[in-house]
């Protein structure tokens, strides 16, 4: 099964949009490196619509108390409700605990189209 979920020009790096893949509501994200990623548009915590959140960066884990290194701008999807952070370039893993992740879909680009498939 494969489906066109948007056109490549619909998103600039650091932007995201809602779409559909079969019966699933999904969020399509374009990361800072220009690649596209797609996830179920539903936070694993309490089901908030992730597309209403923010694609942004995050303070990196650090060994130095009091230090904020805000990096990966455009690669971190934060939930609109509790602000939980997910790394779109790492399968949607939660930053606070990598054991948890939002559901991700396979994505490819073909002829200016973004296609989700399984």
């Amino acid at each position, binding site marked *: 099964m494969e489906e066109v979920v948007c056109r490549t020009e619909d998103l600039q790096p650091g932007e995201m949009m809602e779409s559909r893949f079969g019966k699933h509501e999904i969020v399509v994200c374009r990361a800072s490196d220009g690649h596209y990623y797609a996830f179920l548009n539903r936070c694993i915590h309490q089901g908030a619509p992730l597309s209403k959140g923010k694609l942004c960066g995050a303070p*990196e884990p650090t060994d130095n108390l009091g230090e904020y290194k805000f990096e990966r701008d455009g690669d971190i999807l934060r939930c609109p409700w509790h*602000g939980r952070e997910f790394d779109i370039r790492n399968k949607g893993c939660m930053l606070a605990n990598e054991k948890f992740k939002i559901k991700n879909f396979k994505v490819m680009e073909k002829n200016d189209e973004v296609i989700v498939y399984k």
Partner: protein
Amino acid sequence: MTNPKLHLIDTDIHERVQYSQLLPYLPQPYRRYIEDCSWIQEKHMPFTQPAVAGVDRADAVVPDGRPAGSDLPFMQSQLLDEIGHEFGILTGALDPSPSSMHGWYEMATALASAYNDWQIEHWLEKDERLYGSVHIAAQDPQGAVKEIERVGSHKKMVQILLPIDDKLWGDPYYHPIFEAAEKHDLMIGMHHNEPPVHYGKWPRYFIEWHTLIPVAHMTMVTNMVFNGVFEKFPKLKMMMIEGGFTYVPFLMRKMDQQYRDLRHEVPWIKRMPSDIIRKHICFTTQPLEEMTKKEFLQTFEHMGTDEIVSFSTDYPHWDYDSPYEALPKGLDEGLQRKLFSENARNFYPKLPQLKEEE
């Protein structure tokens, strides 16, 4: 004398000093302030009424009339010999806490020094079972570090006592204290002083204040963990004294939940808060709530470990817990051993390990 079955390491015993006993250890002009001017700390708890002898066990008053906890031979006969302690950790009763000293760091540090010398001479070197807590005026970190350097290497000093009072010790301003602690294999013992749990004031009744002491303990655990003290000082551990432990499952769950959402604010924390607690913090049992065995065991189940709780009597205070009576009946021997001794022994690196034949 030691009860071989119990191997009790009692993690909270309050020895008591009177100012007159500190005078020989106090330099001038501090001695004069007490001797000539009757200076006293402003210990302002407005409650003396909780039990029949105030905040002490009525039978712990020394027979000659001196206050409970002030006489070693009497403590030996009533507590250490009677129960059969293997070791006891002294946690003091005089504390030059910030709220009692109002910024007079110099006097606070001098009092702490005098107290340590008195404690070493009259308690630690008089009974091999007793181990001590380094008193400091932590509100003056530089003075505190000097004092830790002065007495911290004493073989019977096992921890540094910090009051749970009106300062949050996780602030990096106080980290030189933790650096010095780590250097000397000293752990941190935290004991409430006069915790400001009622919006910085006193409630109407003692029962309100005493019920909510764990709130002050939770404040400090939360502060120490999220300020990254245990990330910066990986060998450091902290004993939360006299706040009980039944709040711990709640706090672990709450902190983990907050961390999942708010990690970005404290990116120096790289482990789940509950994991940090399990690795670095231990809790003394007293004052134990009366629980069934099932309720008691459930608490450990929710904490995910039974290795971070240590039995304490809090002698000679009114809410003393008896090692023979306070725990639910029928706990298996392995758990009793952990609570009575193993957990404390694993916590304090300076406590002697069990000999092979034992």
